[in-house]
């Protein structure tokens, strides 16, 4: 017995004393000791003085407390007594833990998105933009809007993904690169959205309607600032569609936008990186966003926000019936009992032009704005005209056969047959065969089937080269509408209907690609024009730089700001890659290293920079040559290329003609674009004759001599009666050079003069057309001066009707000058008349062609200057 606990196994009795273990009423002879019999050393230890201490039981023998170490004493009786609480703890932990996890897992998602309040939703939106947080952004967007505007097209998007996966369009430089580019863009830019002076915006929340589920959140100011972070001198580089360029995000460093509400107006201040500010005022519009409540959580509604903005701008005095859509769902007043009924009810509403019923049939959850803004529409419709329209329409659907199938969590109701009496006649459409029977009020019957019409129009011509898919195969299997269920009622789903037809289109597209068209697509992708690369790379300012290909694409952006230039914005680069077979986008694949002329009139000051992109897993090296030699060649010049074969710029007089020997040449393209123009010699086929250019760049073998001679005197009007085919080509070339100043390239050729068959007619000539846009320039070179003059004279007689051009109506045929003819005409009742102005130039007729008067004037001025 002891006043204090002597050790393990001792117990506290009701008299406040501690007693030895063996004195406990439950004590049983120690089995452990027997186990230790074979181990004398430990058995001896158990015989310690503590355990052998004499003791007496308390008078009442009542146990108050056991030593805590008793639990660890290991005796069988205590094990039995401990098992229950341990099992209890296990059960509790199991129940609480696994139960909690199970409950969270099963209920996960419900109520886990959105924000606690309208202002919290708006604040989260701004925070998400600031944090470049796509998940936070999506979380506060109305999920039903996402379902309507994204979910409706999900099958189509999945089909497209399948096409990419199944066909050769699995370019290694596609989706992943876009994703990486997105990441890098936001890693490089720090975008901040705050209230005034960097503080959180101050919000005012106003409930819209009395449903308690729509609220607009107004804020007095909003500041957006963009700052560059991360590595300097890096750019996003892209190549696609034959274009190559780079975005220097540092160029937007310091840009910003401020929106402030002042006297019910929004003052918009745009801050440029250099600190310049421009201001605009949007009058009588509050700075606000609209939120909706779904299952107790608040979300941003893009539709309501846009709708309310439009209402505020158009007529703030009109008030939509906010919450009408939610009431329709709750009351079950809208929609129909079944999917088929939804279509039948729609048909009935159309018969009577019951537009309110039509609106009430629309999905109130996905497109609630249609319902809430309906009163605004209703107020605009003149009742009298509506009555007249109903009477005039006289429409009655006499037969309607429907079929339905599930589609994308919705129901697609196909119209197998619809027969309609309208205006005394009958229209009978078979939605299965796409055959139409029209019975006129006089009893005349016309039968048409869509596949027959398409066969007649397109025959056996496949819709895409390399496939056997015909136009008739593009006809969908059914025609119908998509219906969606909301709270037991069925509503029409306009976006879903669009989505269904997109889905059908996607499947046709997949068919087209699976039938061999993929080979053509793959071939295209192997060309520069088909290449798609998005990557990140350094900005080269001088000297040379190498970058390693990442995921198949490597790029270098180029700033010519710091290099000596020959003319505004020109510099010279030499590019090469390490591995054989690498492709430098736009460059000739056969030689390395290669030369390119950098044109960037902004000289690196803009956000878009010229760039070089290579398809390589190794290294792309770009060298910016300090100094591009420019020679004055106006009166002719001779020289030789250096040991590296460095290209040379030659300054010329565009009114003169030159002959070049010993080199290949090309024009310097439009310097207003930021690009690298590879010197691949495509212009060499036009020979060495140079005319109407201010600058050309020439290149050749290292050490080779070159010469440019002024040939102007020889090029004065050729002998009209003794012209040679070479002279014809020279004239066309000369015209092409002349039209380069408008960026017009060779387009195509047609036999005869441009208006032959409608006045003039000369089968021995060809017309060459330049420019592939709405405006064109053309030249027709005649064998003799006389024949050119004859053709020009015949142009004055062009009039309609014209046998060669049915549907052409000549509106005017004038002669603004002795050697000019201006013809305007309309073709197939086009709204805008076509304009063609012809000029007689020696034995050539040149012309400007355009619809737009301004564009036409510009082209005509340039063509007129051709001599």
């Amino acid at each position, binding site marked *: 017995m002891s006043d204090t606990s002597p050790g*393990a196994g001792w117990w506290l009795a009701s008299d406040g004393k501690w007693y030895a273990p063996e004195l406990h009423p439950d004590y049983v002879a120690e089995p*452990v000791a027997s*186990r*230790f019999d074979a*181990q004398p050393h*430990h058995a001896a*230890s*158990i015989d*310690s003085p503590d355990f052998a201490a004499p003791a007496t039981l308390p008078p009442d023998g009542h146990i108050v407390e056991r030593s805590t*170490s008793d*639990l*660890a*004493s*290991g005796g069988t009786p205590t*094990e039995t007594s*401990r*098992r229950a609480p*341990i*099992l209890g*703890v*296990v059960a509790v*932990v*199991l129940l609480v*833990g*696994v139960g909690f*996890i199970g409950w*969270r*897992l099963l209920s*996960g*998602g419900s109520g*886990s*998105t959105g*924000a606690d309040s309208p202002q919290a939703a708006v*604040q*989260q939106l*701004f*925070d*998400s933009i*600031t*944090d470049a*947080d*796509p*998940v*936070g*952004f*999506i*979380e*506060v967007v109305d*999920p039903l809007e*996402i*379902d309507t505007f*994204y*979910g409706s097209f*999900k099958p189509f998007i999945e089909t497209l993904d399948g096409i990419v996966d199944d066909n050769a369009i699995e370019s290694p430089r596609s989706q992943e690169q876009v*994703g990486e580019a*997105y*990441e890098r863009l*936001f*890693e490089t830019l720090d975008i901040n959205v705050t209230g005034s002076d960097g503080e959180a915006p101050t919000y005012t929340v106003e409930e819209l309607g009395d449903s308690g589920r729509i609220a607009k959140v107004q804020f007095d100011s909003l500041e957006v600032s963009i700052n560059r972070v991360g590595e300097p001198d890096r750019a996003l580089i892209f190549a696609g569609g034959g274009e190559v360029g780079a975005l220097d995000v540092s160029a937007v460093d310091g840009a910003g936008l401020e929106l402030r509400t002042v006297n019910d107006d929004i003052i918009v201040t745009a801050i440029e990186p250099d600190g310049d500010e421009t201001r605009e005022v949007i009058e009588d519009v509050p700075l606000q966003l609209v939120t909706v409540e779904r299952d107790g959580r608040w979300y941003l509604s893009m539709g309501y926000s846009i709708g309310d903005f439009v209402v505020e701008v158009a007529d703030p005095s009109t008030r939509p019936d906010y919450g009408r859509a939610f009431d329709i769902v709750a009351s079950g007043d809208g929609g129909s009992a079944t999917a088929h009924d939804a279509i039948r009810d729609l048909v009935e509403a159309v018969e009577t032009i019951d537009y309110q019923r039509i609106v009430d049939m629309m999905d109130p959850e996905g497109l609630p704005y249609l319902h809430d803004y309906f009163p605004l529409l209703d107020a605009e419709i003149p009742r009298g005209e509506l009555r007249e329209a109903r009477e005039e329409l006289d429409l009655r659907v006499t037969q309607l056969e429907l079929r339905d199938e599930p589609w994308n*969590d919705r129901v697609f109701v196909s119209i197998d047959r619809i027969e309609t009496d309208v205006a005394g006649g009958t229209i009978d459409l078979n939605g299965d065969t796409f055959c139409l029977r029209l019975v006129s009020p006089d009893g005349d019957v016309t039968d048409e089937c869509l596949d027959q019409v398409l066969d007649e129009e397109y025959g056996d011509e496949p819709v895409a080269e390399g496939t056997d898919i015909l136009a008739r195969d593009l006809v969908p299997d059914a025609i119908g509408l998509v219906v969606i269920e909301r709270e037991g009622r069925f509503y029409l789903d306009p976006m879903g209907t669009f989505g269904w037809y997109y889905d059908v289109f996607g499947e046709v597209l997949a068919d087209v690609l699976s039938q061999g068209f993929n080979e053509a697509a793959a071939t295209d992708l192997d060309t520069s024009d088909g290449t798609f690369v998005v990557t990140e790379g350094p900005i080269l300012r001088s000297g040379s730089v190498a970058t390693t290909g990442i995921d198949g694409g490597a790029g270098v952006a180029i700033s010519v700001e710091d290099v000596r230039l020959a003319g505004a914005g020109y510099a010279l680069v030499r590019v090469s890659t390490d591995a054989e077979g690498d492709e430098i986008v736009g460059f000739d694949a056969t030689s390395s290293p290669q030369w390119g002329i950098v044109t960037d009139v902004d000289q690196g000051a803009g956000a878009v920079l010229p760039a070089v992109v290579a398809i390589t897993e190794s290294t792309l090296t770009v060298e910016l040559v300090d100094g591009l030699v420019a020679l004055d060649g106006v009166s002719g010049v001779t020289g030789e290329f250096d040991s590296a074969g460095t290209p040379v710029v030659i300054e010329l007089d565009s009114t003169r003609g030159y002959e070049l020997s010993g080199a290949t040449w090309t024009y310097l393209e439009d310097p207003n674009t930021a690009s690298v123009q590879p010197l691949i010699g495509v212009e060499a086929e036009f020979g060495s004759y140079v005319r109407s250019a201010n600058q050309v760049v020439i290149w050749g073998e290292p050490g080779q001599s070159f010469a440019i001679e002024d040939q102007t005197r020889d090029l004065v009007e050729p002998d009209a009666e003794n012209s040679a085919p070479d002279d014809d080509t020279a004239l066309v070339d000369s015209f092409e050079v002349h039209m380069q100043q408008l960026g017009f390239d060779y387009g195509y050729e047609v036999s005869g003069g441009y208006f032959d068959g409608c006045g003039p007619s000369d089968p021995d000539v060809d017309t060459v057309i330049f420019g592939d846009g709405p405006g064109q320039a053309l030249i027709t070179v005649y064998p003799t001066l006389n024949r050119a003059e004859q053709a020009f004279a015949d142009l004055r007689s062009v009039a309609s009707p014209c046998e060669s051009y049915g549907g052409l109506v000549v509106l005017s045929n004038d002669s603004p000058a002795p050697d000019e003819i201006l013809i305007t005409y309309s073709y197939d009742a086009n709204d805008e008349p076509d304009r063609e102005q012809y000029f007689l130039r020696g034995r050539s007729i040149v012309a400007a062609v355009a619809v737009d008067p301004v564009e036409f004037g510009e082209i005509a001025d340039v063509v007129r200057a051709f001599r």
Partner: protein
Amino acid sequence: MRVEERLTISATAGVVVGAVGAFLPWARIGGRNRSGFATADLFVGLGSGSLPDLISWAGRWWYVPAVLMFCVWLSVLFDGTTWLRVVAVVVSMLALAMWWLFVWAGWNWSVIDVAWTGPVVTTVGVLVVAHAAASKRNSILFTGTGRVRPSSLLQESSEELI
């Protein structure tokens, strides 16, 4: 204290630490810190709509290690046979790998702004549970059903008598 009891307490403490970690921030989304549960639920919620199912599965993915952790903890209550201990350690590592893959994916692809407190604390909890599960012991629930391990008794008795 007997080994199995000490290990049970240790494993339970590990579960508690892991649970606390699960409630600590795992990500900062929409300007707010989110616990592991909230982060997972958010993904499950986003994916339950029309967004790609992959998003939803990412959320469910997070829950799997939580369940695995409980399985490992349960194993501590049983006889520590070699195979059970090996399985427990493997499952613990699998759970950790799954959680950290979740974290890595979110961080690597800039999907979420990862908060490290939750993952680190949870990892500590898992390691504690794993350590307990890896240690040799008798079953604490079914005494007598397992083989007697004199050496363990020897050890505990020695501890008591020192």
